[in-house]
């Protein structure tokens, strides 16, 4: 545990020294807030709150897919990574440290969205819901962390960047993150429940407002977590087997 914290601390240090990485994951949701949420839903407290929750989900997704997908793939290219395996610790502290650092960066990337929502829109949330939303962020990070790990462990870094960019927009759009709850165009309403972004955003909506979650979305989110966990585990073992067996 002590060591996991050490690993987390140094991973954060490495990331913070190149702040572009953080700006990157915070930029899209913040820009989307400014261009779409503030002018169109900003005046309506309920609509603005839901829209903010959707942007938070967007942010959680992109932060996790990118930092794990690209970060892990880049680490695998570095000889430093095998060196850390010769230190007297298993791979667990490094892995746990990575997940902790990832969660910290995820929360950090949410700051602009929340600040914009609080200052430029009518979005309102009570303290209890805010705490619930914070916890929900950690919960919905799970599928996207696993997705990022799958990408990072199965692809070389250049391919990982491309794949991360290719998956995140369709997931955001298809999951209905860019529309108000249940107001998305018909075909999106039809496919959304089958995407992990939908279950995630519904959990966020339920945390911040009076929204009741669809069973189908939630079940599918569970299916995604199981499938992605299996994929990530497979990719990790395959990579380890190829490089360290």
């Amino acid at each position: 545990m002590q060591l996991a914290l050490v690993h987390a601390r140094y991973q954060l240090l490495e990331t913070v020294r190149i702040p572009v990485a953080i700006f990157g994951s915070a930029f899209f949701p913040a820009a989307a807030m400014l261009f779409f949420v503030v002018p169109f839903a900003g005046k309506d407290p309920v609509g603005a709150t839901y829209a903010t929750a959707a942007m938070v989900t967007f942010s959680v997704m992109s932060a996790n897919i990118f930092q794990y997908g690209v970060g892990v793939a880049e680490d695998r290219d570095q000889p430093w990574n095998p060196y850390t395996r010769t230190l007297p610790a298993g791979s667990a502290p490094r892995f746990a440290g990575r997940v902790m650092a990832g969660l910290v960066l995820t929360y950090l990337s949410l700051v602009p969205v929340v600040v914009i929502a609080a200052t430029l829109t009518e979005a309102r949330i009570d303290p209890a819901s805010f705490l619930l939303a914070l916890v929900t962020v950690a919960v919905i990070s799970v599928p996207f962390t696993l997705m990022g790990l799958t990408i990072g462990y199965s692809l070389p870094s250049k391919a990982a960047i491309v794949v991360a960019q290719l998956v995140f927009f369709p997931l955001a759009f298809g999951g209905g993150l860019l529309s108000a709850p249940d107001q998305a165009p018909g075909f999106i309403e039809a496919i959304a429940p089958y995407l992990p972004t939908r279950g995630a955003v519904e959990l966020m909506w339920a945390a911040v407002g009076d929204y009741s979650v669809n069973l189908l979305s939630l079940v599918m989110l569970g299916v995604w977590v199981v499938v992605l966990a299996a994929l990530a585990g497979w990719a990790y073992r395959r990579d380890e087997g190829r490089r360290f067996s």
Partner: protein
Amino acid sequence: MINIVERDILARAERVSRRYGDVLALDQVDLEVRAGELVGLLGPNGAGKSTLISLLVGLRKPSSGRVELNGGDPRDPASRRQIGVTPQETGLPGTLRVGEVVDFVSAHYPDPVPRGDLLDRFGLADLVRRQCGGLSGGQKRRLAVALAFVGRPRLVVLDEPTTGLDVEARHTLWEAIRAFHADGGTVLLSSHYLEEVEALARRVVVIGQGRVLADDTVDAVRAVVGVRRVSLTAETLPPLPGVVRTEHVDGRTHLLTADADQLVRDLVASGVDFRDLEVRPTSLEEAFLAITATDAAPAAA
């Protein structure tokens, strides 16, 4: 009695083979490193030195055979508590400062060397606050080697520690390695420079084409590996003892031998007519080719 001997062996490979697909990188290698030894692994690039080291420090599994570190499996973190390994210099995290990298590695050991002491020993004290990405090649290399000593190891494993260093930096590192050994530390280092192994090691293990070709004292190995090239122009040559290999290139005859002095004496004594005699040292690669091509017959002699 047996227990004491067993405990003395810090690293061991027993009939270890390692395959990468179709390539056999190591072929039935045996190696034992005992406490207090300074062992050089000598061999040309691609001989299997790095593969052997990666097995001993737990980065890879042997395809067959057994490796042991402090009496345990090197892949078990507990077995690695008393060893120190050098990362490849290119692998240092570029955004972390020198001091931070040392602290990070220190966190893995129960009783690490204080940061200041370590950096002093390797001439890095002025660079504590510098980011690794901004270090020169020599500074990176020194930091990389310094990291192997952080955890007060009993055994330090150095893979090509001074490749690409200038003479001065190389000697600084050699001093540090010698000092560690003088304090009772055990060192296993690989190199493709005979000079480096001669300067540091007492015992040399010569590896070529994945096999151990020789495991002996530096002097004995130098006699084998220190092959010279005797070049001359001559019509015909009588059979000469001690010639490992003969080449004819552009009318010149090149004779590879472990004892150039004796060969020249034999040449003169044979009364054969020759001109333009030249004696030159060979590269390690040439020497290995000579040894392996003749199936190690002269090596055994």
